[in-house]
């Protein structure tokens, strides 16, 4: 939106714009508007720093929170429908880890409302914005520190094309599909981050994966934190509100990392509900039908449609679900990507949203800060691109060589002997990641995970794509995605093994405390020539808030 009309802009998307996974965000978008209580930007900054378990870069967090109110007003003026207070202002609800009522919401479909408002703007721009829907991005072209474009495949025809550009922005989302229990869309296979990584760009803090406390049992589908924000309880098999043990002051509205671990502890210690004691319960019954139907209609429908539970009458079975990727492509506060741990940057390459690691979420993101981040930093990236792009030239690309490389990668996926099955490897990977690199981690589990994933990568070489077609060849897309998932899963494990402390979403049972002496550092994973990787570290930016004990 910042660029359209001033430059030749195109959007390339794996799905259709309205299908992006931002639309699945439910509960709200944070901004210290103070519409219902005495909130302040100051408090928002502190809550975010603390929620991030002090791994967030505080200069970036200040930008995020300062720009939040303006961002919400801008979206409101573009037409985003927001639920309203009795005095006709944007309504705000409670959310985990936020000390005031800060989540602006549109019932429990906030992401959907924001996403569709932006999609509507693409119609307003008319022909000035070209959208390439259903293209799979295969390669990012970076040479001599200059980004030159991407290679992408039209899913409808199988045709590969080089898109040359003076500047490229990735807003390609997270990497939660590597987990068995996940709230992520099928499309969230980390294609963007892996393309950057393979082009020589490091990935930052990959070990930090957030597990959301209220995933629908076995499905992993998200039930918004807004359900607890509206007053919902978490109970175990005995009907106890177990959060009183773990976060007595915030109770159910503790931050996600702490609530998810508390649930897992309840389950691990035999207080889970159900025949196999595998889940805990989200209890909304006391909220009453009217409030549930007005504020949480989607939660009602999801529980009803997917597991047949009427949450007005019965508590809903839930379990922690892989939800958000704090790690990603490192960038400065204007979203321009770093090429190394020393501050050198890639010319013409920008990132925003979940694929980026700026890092405003540090070791644990607070609910409602992700929609905010996408909006605030998406706009900043656009403004910066507008600023710098006129000074850049359209860099040379050896198109033939790039297309050949993409074709070769695809040909390799057809060349396996077929003795291994793609979907079996994918399911095994997901099991490993959920059960060995999940809510609780330890060296033994992660060492096993590491060698098992290595084995999966060897077996993956034997997989053979069976569909020879060029039109909607899902079999080929599956293979391209699995190749990405295997590659980044190794980095999650490596980063997690190396980080011998517990911080935010990364919890080591063998190193259960935070170690500020040694680990106030971002992990940076660099790809090596032989396809392996090397870990380096860079310090966290601390401006105003020194690390202190994190209690709720």
């Amino acid at each position: 939106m910042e660029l359209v009309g001033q430059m030749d802009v195109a959007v390339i998307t794996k799905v259709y714009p309205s299908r992006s996974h931002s639309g699945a965000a439910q509960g709200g978008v944070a901004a210290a508007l103070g519409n219902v209580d005495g909130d302040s930007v100051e408090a928002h900054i502190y809550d975010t720093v603390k929620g991030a378990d002090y791994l967030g870069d505080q200069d970036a967090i200040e930008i995020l929170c300062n720009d939040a109110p303006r961002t919400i007003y801008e979206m409101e003026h573009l037409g985003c429908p927001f639920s309203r207070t009795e005095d006709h202002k944007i309504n705000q609800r409670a959310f985990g880890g936020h000390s005031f009522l800060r989540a602006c919401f549109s019932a429990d479909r906030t992401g959907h409302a924001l996403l569709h408002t932006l999609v509507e703007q693409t119609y307003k721009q008319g022909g000035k914005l070209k959208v390439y829907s259903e293209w799979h991005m295969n390669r990012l072209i970076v040479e001599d520190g200059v980004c030159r474009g991407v290679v992408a495949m039209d899913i409808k025809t199988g045709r590969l094309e080089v898109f040359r550009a003076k500047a490229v922005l990735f807003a390609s989302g997270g990497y939660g599909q590597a987990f068995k229990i996940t709230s992520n869309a099928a499309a969230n296979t980390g294609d963007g981050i892996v393309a950057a990584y393979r082009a020589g760009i490091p990935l930052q803090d990959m070990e930090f994966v957030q597990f959301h406390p209220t995933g629908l049992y076995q499905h992993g589908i998200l039930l918004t934190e807004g359900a607890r924000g509206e007053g919902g309880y978490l109970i175990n098999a005995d009907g106890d509100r177990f959060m009183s043990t773990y976060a007595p002051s915030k109770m159910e509205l503790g931050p996600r990392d702490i609530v998810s671990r508390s649930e897992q502890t309840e389950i691990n210690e035999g207080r889970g509900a159900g025949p196999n004691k595998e889940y805990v319960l989200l209890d909304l019954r006391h909220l009453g039908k009217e409030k549930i139907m007005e504020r949480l209609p989607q939660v009602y429908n999801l529980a009803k449609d997917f597991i047949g539970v009427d949450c007005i009458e019965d508590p809903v079975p839930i379990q922690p679900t892989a939800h958000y990727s704090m790690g990603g492509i490192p960038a400065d506060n204007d979203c321009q990507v770093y090429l190394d741990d020393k501050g050198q940057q890639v010319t013409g390459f920008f990132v925003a949203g979940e694929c980026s690691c700026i890092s405003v979420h540090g070791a644990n993101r607070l609910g409602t800060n992700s929609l905010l981040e996408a909006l605030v930093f998406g706009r900043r990236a656009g403004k910066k691109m507008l600023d710098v792009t006129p000074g850049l030239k359209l860099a040379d690309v050896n198109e033939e060589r790039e297309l050949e490389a993409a074709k070769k990668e695809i040909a390799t996926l057809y060349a396996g002997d077929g003795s291994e099955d793609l979907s079996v490897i994918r399911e095994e990977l997901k099991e490993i990641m959920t059960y060995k690199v999940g809510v609780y981690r330890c060296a033994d589990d992660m060492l096993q995970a590491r060698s098992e994933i290595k084995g999966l990568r060897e077996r993956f070489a034997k997989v053979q794509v069976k569909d020879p077609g060029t039109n909607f060849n899902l079999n080929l897309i599956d293979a391209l995605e699995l190749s990405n998932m295997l590659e980044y899963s190794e980095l999650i494990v490596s980063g997690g093994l190396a980080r011998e402390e517990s911080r935010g979403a990364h919890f080591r049972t063998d190193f259960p405390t935070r170690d500020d002496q040694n680990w106030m550092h971002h992990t940076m994973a660099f790809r090596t020539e032989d396809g392996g990787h090397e870990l380096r570290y860079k310090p966290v930016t601390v401006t105003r808030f020194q690390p202190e004990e994190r209690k709720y």
Partner: protein
Amino acid sequence: MASKVTMRIQRFDPAVDEKPHDQDFEIELPAGITILKALNKVRAEKDPTLALRYSCGSAICGSCAMKVNGHARLACKTQVSDCTVDGVLRIAPMGNLKILRDLVVDMDPFFDSLGKAKPYLEAGNGSVPEFERKQRPEEFLQIDPSTTCILCAACYSDCNVLEVDDNFFGPATLAKAHRFIFDSRDVDTQARLRAVSKKTGVWDCTHCGECSTRCPTETKPLERIEEIRTKAMADGFHDNVGARHALGFRETVGKRGILDENYLPARSMGFFNLPGLLSLVPIGLRMMMRGKNPPLIPHKIDKLEEVKKTFARFEELRK
């Protein structure tokens, strides 16, 4: 408890097939499985070449609408057990859109059609003020249903009007129009009402209700179309066939207690609309030849006074 199901899936690959054909997959499915998961099980275990669209898996992205037993539904939120008839589950691509491969259809006509609704807020003043605009909670609730639309196109697929006239705005586009017509912050209401009152707009809907029946959200396009019609009439947009038809309907029933089928077509078309009236001649003649034309002097009903009283009462209530 697992059970064996025959998934009868319509297949079509334009590279090899002349026309679509059904293929049966016998597959063991666990209890409580959704159609999307069952289809992915078919891809994993039986045939990796099956093409379909899906993404979020939680009924919000709108990717996976397809026909289940002949009607459009979201595969991700529909239980296999709810749709299996005598052990068979029939799956086919959506209707009214060209099939690209198997269950994948060309969505471009659908997304393009939304443009007809001018689907963005006209705020009236381009700058971003420092404060939010106010909106009453009940004003938000008025657009709440139409903003739940996920653009899955289930309504487009099963719309009976689109089947015969692809110029029709379509249910999703009209729901989108509703979302702005009823947004208290939009300044373009009258122009929007004028646009949807024209031919191919709200009055071309035949009230079959398929859109609302198939809609997986609270959008329910038929209800939104009716709300637009009511508002368009109230705001004086009467100069079109649909509005005249509605008004003429009320006139003849109010006057005679029964529909005057000779008067109504001419009233709807407009008494001075010569080309429009002439366009009715062929169908009139065909009806006459088959003896289907209504009597020239319409009947009156016995209890006309009661009908008149009902109308009077209705007018009173309306005021």
